């Protein structure tokens, strides 16, 4: 469960470059809901995900994940509830560590780490099984350096890593954007499987309107740091890309006329 209430965040406060990225954004996501997030460049999508994960701190507002107020907690102290996959396929893993070392880091996400062996034998079977499902042949390459894998393979492993231990929410920021179309489709399918199987509460940012409608159970559009529309259920079922586009345009158009009215 995610509850973001009236989030305000301004970058460069008090400088000439002051830039309000979140302007009173509120969003409630129920457990198990898979929400796709769209919006134009600079709308605040990444900022919202960064605020939820703790990479940036909001100026005001409240963030609750699973009945726990995490507003003031740094990233590493939210990691037990929040799993993340980044847009950059290289960002979610360490290239100098082996596949099994990377996965061992993830299996301990949000838990205490001691002096016991990092990669345990009992993990290896789990890793191998999980990797085998990808059909990429990675199950036989546990000891290979992550840097030897392609971007798509690394992104697939990042996704597996996000699902290795129970986190309540999964944040995906355009995680297929840097992949070729075929790999992107593969990673997207994998995403859907994982979200479904582990019943994750997921937030997925995408620039593809089609993806936004095809995947998940609800679509939210951000504009200028606020939620400008939020559709789910039947209303969303009948929606096609052109409808979404026109909604998109309408929202932006409204803003423009609003502004011109104000200026006029």
């Amino acid at each position: 469960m995610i509850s973001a209430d009236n989030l305000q965040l301004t970058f460069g406060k008090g400088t000439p470059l002051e830039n309000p990225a979140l302007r009173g954004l509120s969003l409630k996501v129920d457990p198990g809901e898979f929400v796709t997030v769209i919006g134009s460049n600079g709308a605040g999508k990444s900022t919202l995900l960064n605020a939820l994960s703790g990479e940036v701190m909001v100026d005001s507002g409240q963030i609750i994940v699973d009945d726990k107020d995490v507003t003031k907690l740094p990233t590493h102290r939210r990691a037990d509830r929040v799993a993340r996959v980044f847009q950059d396929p290289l960002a979610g893993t360490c290239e100098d560590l082996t596949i099994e070392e990377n996965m061992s880091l993830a299996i301990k996400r949000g838990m205490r780490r001691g002096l016991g062996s990092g990669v345990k034998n009992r993990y290896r079977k789990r890793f191998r099984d999980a990797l085998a499902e990808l059909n990429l042949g990675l199950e036989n390459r546990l000891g290979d350096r992550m840097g030897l894998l392609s971007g798509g393979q690394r992104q697939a492993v990042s996704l597996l890593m996000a699902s290795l231990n129970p986190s309540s929410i999964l944040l995906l920021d355009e995680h297929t954007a840097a992949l070729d179309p075929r790999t992107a489709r593969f990673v997207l399918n994998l995403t859907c499987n994982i979200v479904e199987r582990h019943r994750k509460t997921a937030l997925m940012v995408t620039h593809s309107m089609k993806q936004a409608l095809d995947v998940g159970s609800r679509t939210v559009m951000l504009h200028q740091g606020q939620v400008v529309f939020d559709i789910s259920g039947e209303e969303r079922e009948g929606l096609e890309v052109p409808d979404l586009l026109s909604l998109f345009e309408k929202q932006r158009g409204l803003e423009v006329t609003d502004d011109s009215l104000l200026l006029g």
Partner: protein
Amino acid sequence: MLSEIALYGAFETGLIYGIVAFGVYLSFRVLHFPDLTVDGSFPLGAAVAAVMIIDGFNPWLATGMALVAGMGAGAVTALLNVRLHILNLLASILTMIALYSVNLRIMGRPNIALLSEETVLTPWYELDLAFHQVPVALFLLVSLVGLVMLWRFMQSETGLAMRATGANPRMARSQGIATGWMIVLGIALSNGLVALAGALFAQSQGAADVTMGVGVIVIGLASLIGGEAVLTPRNVFRALLACLVGAILYRLAIALALNADFVGLKTQDLNLITAVLVTLAIVLPNARHSVKSFFSRS
């Protein structure tokens, strides 16, 4: 060629600088934290050990305390960076400069002779070994124990977390790793090792001197880079082994250069030569590109 004594001498100091190189590997390679505290923590270790030894403490206890003191110095550098957000390089320079005063305070004078004192080496002279072989045997043991312990540590949960912190801090945080504390722990450990090396160095040379730290960081780097060039470390074990091998090769090369009269080198030229060697290792096209990209970044 080298005399037998000079050869053992090169191994003796090489092994000590190998321990320094372990520390430099931790900071520069694992954590990507360019740490110059080393130049202060090496004599710090020597100072603590020397003062405790002349006060009659057990030399191993003195050496252990030197390690602890070094860890403290490293922790200060890391905290200046992590808590007060001072640039890592600058933070380490500040600690290094401060340590110069601290070391003088600890010793009470610029140098302390240990020639007639009981050191960690003393009991080893009872063994059936030639005089100049004793330090080599002991330091080989210490450095190998250090290597195995560090290697095991790097494979542990915390060790993995530390490596992730250096390699990809954002990923590390998102996996729940407190990267700030990992840096404190790693830099403390690094300087603890360097201070340990300083303590052993003072005992093998028979004196501690406040100026003995000058250029130690460059020697550590030279050993690290040289070892990497020879062993191409693909994993942590080889990387640590490379530190030892690099340091020994470095000392051998220096001993040879000093030995060859026609070259006309003197001991005081060492720092210049080392700096030139490190520079060459960094700019030579076959130098490891990671090294290159790291040092040429502004």
